[in-house]
């Protein structure tokens, strides 16, 4: 009886140990708030994250098997599409908006520039189905994955089921995206008292706190809300932002406040990518605001900055660059996963 008990508990321990080895605890950076994402409904595991990483880089998600998530979200530019004002999709078709940088998604409630997507798990459906992005549909993606050599094995490893579903596909993509956490910029090390700002950065930080931080709130550098930041309407796009979703006139021309983390590398800026340089962005806030009815209350009083102050502010913004994020090998193209096909 006793031996039976010992064997049983050893067995249980082995199973638990295996589970723990594969389970991944989401680490909340010490200076960050509690995440919004409910991890209990999609518990992270190494195999699911790696499956999601493969899906993120695999053009099989598009109609012609040419465009992947990474096509418009490349790591070196903080997972946006550098140099493209508007996203650039299947067959060189040009999209409607500037693709967003992807990071710290576990802290976001609504997705896309207009908040049309209400949960990270269903976010990928939008680019997959958009006729100028991937032009596919999730049910056909699932049948392509099921027919592939690689994916039934990866889904089995991840979910214990080689029958692929839309739910599992989307949850795996979420898992990889959730790991895209940027929290190791110079700003963060200063906040953790591990380094100090230069006098110029320090002055820039004070200017930032006075003029910018009510919307670009620390430590995520966004309040995760929607604002009209006084951009004139581009009549070739006539994009009214959040109004498109809520049909509420008070939401006209409001767009999601983007994070400023890694902003040095995520140009061009604004929902339509109209500004290429940070100096243009600052000039907009000091001299270019159009006071349309829905203008953000924070921008009703003019922001005044001298040209030296603008330089100081930019020096501070550059402290938000996180090289350990931009070059993290965990986010690279997963050639070891894709080369499995050749190996076995």
């Amino acid at each position, binding site marked *: 009886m006793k031996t039976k008990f010992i064997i049983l508990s050893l067995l249980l321990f082995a199973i638990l140990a295996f589970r723990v080895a594969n389970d991944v605890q989401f680490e909340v950076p010490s200076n960050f708030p509690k995440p919004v994402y409910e991890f209990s409904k999609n518990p992270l595991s190494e195999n699911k994250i790696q499956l999601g990483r493969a899906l993120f880089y695999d053009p099989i998600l598009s109609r012609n098997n040419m465009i992947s998530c990474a096509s418009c979200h490349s790591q070196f530019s903080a997972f946006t599409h550098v140099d493209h004002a508007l996203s650039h999709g299947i067959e060189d078709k040009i999209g409607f908006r500037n693709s967003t940088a992807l990071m710290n998604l576990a802290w976001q409630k609504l997705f896309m520039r207009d908040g049309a*997507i*209400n949960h990270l798990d269903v976010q990928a459906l939008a680019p997959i189905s958009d006729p100028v992005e991937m032009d596919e549909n999730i049910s056909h993606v699932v049948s392509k994955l099921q027919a592939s050599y690689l994916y039934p094995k990866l889904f089995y490893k991840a979910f214990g089921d080689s029958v692929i579903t839309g739910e599992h596909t989307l949850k795996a993509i979420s898992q990889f995206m959730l790991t895209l956490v940027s929290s190791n910029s110079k700003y963060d090390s200063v906040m953790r008292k591990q380094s100090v700002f230069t006098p110029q950065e320090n002055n820039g930080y004070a200017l930032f706190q006075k003029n910018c931080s009510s919307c670009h709130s620390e430590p995520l550098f966004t309040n995760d809300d929607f604002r009209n930041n006084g951009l004139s309407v581009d009549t070739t796009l006539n994009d009214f932002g959040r109004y498109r979703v809520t049909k509420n006139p008070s939401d006209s021309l409001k767009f999601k406040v983007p994070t400023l983390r890694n902003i040095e590398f995520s140009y061009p800026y604004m929902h339509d990518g109209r500004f290429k340089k940070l100096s243009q962005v600052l000039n907009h806030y000091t001299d270019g605001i159009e006071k349309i009815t829905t203008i953000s209350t924070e921008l009703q009083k003019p922001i005044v900055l001298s040209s030296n102050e603008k330089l100081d502010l930019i020096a501070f913004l550059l402290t938000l660059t996180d090289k350990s994020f931009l070059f993290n090998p965990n986010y690279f193209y997963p050639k070891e996963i894709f080369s499995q096909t050749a190996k076995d």
Partner: protein
Amino acid sequence: MIKASLLLSFMVLANATDAQQISTIQISFTYGSKVLSMDDSLNQSNDSSVLRITQLKFYISKIKFLNHGKVVMEENNSFHLVDASQINSLQILIDNKQNIPFDELKFNLGLDSTTNVSGALGGDLDPTKGMYWTWQSGYINFKLEGKSNVCKTRNNEFAFHLGGYQQPYYGLQTLSFPLNNTNRIHLNLDVLEIIKEINLTKTNHIMSPSAEAVMLSKIVANAFTLSKN
């Protein structure tokens, strides 16, 4: 041995009673006085126009049974995608092991807002089922597509995708039917009752949450009746 046979007979007995304690909700479709047959030409009531229905799918959720106004039984994980062209989806079986008496059936036509903000879900709620919007989050509660010679659209097509999980365009409808304590419940949807409320020459395309979508969702809810047989 006696024990074993006792157990066996008990199991048989339990099985036998179980069989009687399954309530069946059978769903059928008519077009006025006729049985609706998908893809066939149908005459509209009072004129010479002809139409055909090519797709008819909707969600029935949160099925509840009441007795004297009080909920006595609720189905767990109660989400059913009903597809007029999938015969298996037209019968919903509800286990009533304890043989609880009830006199009313209540269910939602469509999905509540919590379900709509819960991310990627599985089973009948899997986004591969073609009932999830992609450009904007949210489920389609009710999908009716077809063709009519009065629609001046490409291929004379019309499409009504009704959904919306947020006010003021919350499309969910709650339906309730008094029952005699019966284990065979037969619901019928008369599609003509919907079509005759829509001016197809003018309205032939609803694809997003709106006041029109909510109005049409109410019309759809009213087109369900409890059949006598």
